């Protein structure tokens, strides 16, 4: 009884070792091929592009597959968290194998731009998108937009009872009834917007008052939405599409609704998902082709219909159930200012929200 398992164990170990050597062999071949693409500067061959995507595979893979089908350009897509992929590109520096960075929020794109790792986009690409939704330094462009909303429990709250400003949520009558996701990048972009629109002092006081008012913290926007559906809280500060996608799945009696703060309020901030091209990429033409594709009619329709976001190019309609983008204008705000997340993080830490 003792002998056999030991023998088995030894055999397993040996097997693993053999596997490891053969796997290293595999590595060598895969490396040499990726090394070849990495050093393809000699001849600009757009046969293959490497994309770091902070947008989820489940959401954007069909679109990226369509790009390959339409153009014949193969994509190597590395999916991950937007900020972690941005951090990865920071560490890779000049040696990054990535050609295009496709990010979930303007902040990560802004950080890469600041680090000098993105190259300039051609004016023809930039001009497809309204100046509000692209980098003033011309290094990234928004591909779709998302609005911050005050999601609410339709079973308890009427639409006209949704407060016109997030600043109202510090009122004692909302005590313990609001959920937010303070670790979420889009929440932090929203706090940054509040600092820019209402001033540092207002933002600081608001965070303190919200915390004192028993606002519940969740790890993800989706969890805030689920908490409303579960009756844990009655309001949630999240992005519009979280509600739309759940409503599309769950049907008409889904209990969570989207409420919008009045135009100009940081509570209805419009932020973008966007793309930039790495300066170190030796496939600039192919990379531009991909970014242009993301701004093309088909992609924009995809974002509107499949991910419930606002299209940013052309005259496609907004997704059902949300006001048009033009109604959510933020007169006092330049999206590029949202990269000042450091100040926001400090504020969030100082006020004890995180």
């Amino acid at each position: 009884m003792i002998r056999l398992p030991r023998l088995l164990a030894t055999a397993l170990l040996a097997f693993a070792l053999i596997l490891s050597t053969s796997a290293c062999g595999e590595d060598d071949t895969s490396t040499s091929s990726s090394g070849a693409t990495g050093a393809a500067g000699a001849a600009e061959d757009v046969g293959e592009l490497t994309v770091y995507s902070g947008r989820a595979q489940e959401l954007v893979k069909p679109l990226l597959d369509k790009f390959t089908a339409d153009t014949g350009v193969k994509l190597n897509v590395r999916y991950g968290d937007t900020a972690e992929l941005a951090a990865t590109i920071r560490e890779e520096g000049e040696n990054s194998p990535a050609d295009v960075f496709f990010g979930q929020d303007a902040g990560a794109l802004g950080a890469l731009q600041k680090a000098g790792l993105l190259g300039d986009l051609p004016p023809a690409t930039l001009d497809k998108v309204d100046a509000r939704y692209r980098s003033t330094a011309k290094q990234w462009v928004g591909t779709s937009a998302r609005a911050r909303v005050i999601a609410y429990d339709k079973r308890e709250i009427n639409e006209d009872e949704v407060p016109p400003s997030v600043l109202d949520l510090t009122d004692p009558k909302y005590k313990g009834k609001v959920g937010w996701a303070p670790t979420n990048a889009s929440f932090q972009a929203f706090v940054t917007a509040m600092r820019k629109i209402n001033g540092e002092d207002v933002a600081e006081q608001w965070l303190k008052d919200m915390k004192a008012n028993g606002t519940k913290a969740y790890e993800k926007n989706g969890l805030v939405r689920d908490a409303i559906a579960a009756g844990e809280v009655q309001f949630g500060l999240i992005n519009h599409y979280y509600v739309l996608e759940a409503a599309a799945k769950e049907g008409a009696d889904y209990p969570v609704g989207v409420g919008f703060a009045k135009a100009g309020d940081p509570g209805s901030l419009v932020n973008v998902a966007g793309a930039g091209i790495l300066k170190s990429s030796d496939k600039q033409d192919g990379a531009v082709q991909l970014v242009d594709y993301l701004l093309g009619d088909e992609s924009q329709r995809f974002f509107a219909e499949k991910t419930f976001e606002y299209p940013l190019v052309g005259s496609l309609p907004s997704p059902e159930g949300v006001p048009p983008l033009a109604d959510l204008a933020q007169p006092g705000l330049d999206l590029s200012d949202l990269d000042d997340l450091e100040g926001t993080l400090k504020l969030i830490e100082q006020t004890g929200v995180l």
Partner: protein
Amino acid sequence: MAVTSTMRRRYRGGGPSRTPAPLLLVAVVCAAAAAVPLVYLVIVIAGSPSAAGDAIWRARTVELLVRSLGLALAVATTSSVIAVVLAWLTVRTDLPGRRLWALLTVLPFVVPSYIGAYLFVSALGPGGVLVQVDWIYGFGGAWLVLTLFTYPLVLLPVRAAMRRQDPSLEEAARGMGAGPVTSFLTVTLPQLTPAIGAGALLAALYTLSDFGAVSILRFDSFTRVIYQSYRASFDRTGAAALAGLLVVVMLLLYLWEARVRSTRSSARSAPGTARPLAPVPLGRWKLPALAFCTAIVTIALVVPVITLVVWSQRAVAGAPDWSAITGAMGNSLLTAGLAASAAVLVALPVALLSARHPGRATQTVEAISSSGYVLPGIIIALALVFVGTRAAPWAYQTLLIVVFAMVVHFLPLALGAMRTALLQVPRSLEEAGRSCGRGPLSVWATITAPLAMGGTLAGGALVFLTAVKELPTVILLAPTGFQTLATEIWQQTNASVFEAGAVPALVLLLVSAPPLFFLVGRD
């Protein structure tokens, strides 16, 4: 051969032995690999020391450190208590079905902490399906969840040590009239201290490095702030500074544990073949003992599995993509298998050094080799991104660098188990082999290695079971498009809700069961 002459001198001379230089050299090389993240941290911190200083001297750093350490010590303590009781019940008593309990009580280890945490929130949180408790968020919840999913880290080495314990001592105590409890507390427990210490240290270090559970249970820990530095402010210097502090804390914990360990010796005085000890009859304690095992297994294993099954039935994302899941399963097994084999090989010289030649140099080598376990996965991954793209671009984003990262990250798991096993091989047996004219390598191959095999396999299995659920290093370092079960769970839950990851999570539990079964059923 140098080894031979050095070792011969050692054996002839008797008394405290000199460390053989070749062994030290090999061990130092292995430790150097483990030091890659440390080098990265130094480079980043040295790049802008003032920013690093700012990050550390922020008022909340001290508070966070105290909170995180408090949690780590609490988890280590409760894990140790649970583990010792379970080990004793399943090794020493006539508990009905103890082989089965032995397996079931180790299984919670394969539940990834963030899945476990989310399950507990949905069971006990606001709107929870079982009961609603306030303490689930914060310290209480983190303590409960991390204890339930890390106590097997203590249970495995304690069980192994208990099985290998010299029965004659306890028999002697019993023969002189001591009751089972007294003889356990005065004879058995003290002998187990090294195993408990090693396991508790791992549980504490894991708690310090965990991100998944603390983030979902909203406990502000050090690691959570490190992730925040990347996610919110793209601030790598601050993150590196905090991670550096974590390493310092780990070194202090390590030294403390090493001091406890060094005062004990655990080799059997009797010959190497284990003689089974007559099991302690539980008598009227049988029912409470069964209730305890049932409670632990129900909370830490049955409830999670049932919840996952229910979720998988809900099929949030439609029918699961079985071909993707099968492929991911193969990749998980491959990476975890490679990581386990490599970690055992790298740990071997360090464990030998540690077990046979304790001293300053040994302690340094060992401490550096252990540092990877306390670091959050994201730090290990980014360190290897930084070093890999510069020093070994040919290996970057290949399986090789993933396995390297996992070895660095999980080396202490193998090291602890192997060191304990080697310490339990009686020196007298090796010396007897030498006096019969065998060379040191022959002694090692015919006496030491077979006797330490169990611990070695246990170490490899621990690395395997941890590597199979590892996420950050795979996401950032694996070949593009390389999916494991962990990345599959992440993809699903990232896009929508946790429920969507239920199917790959169940598969993860299933593939982890055979190595555990093997590990526990070995004897």
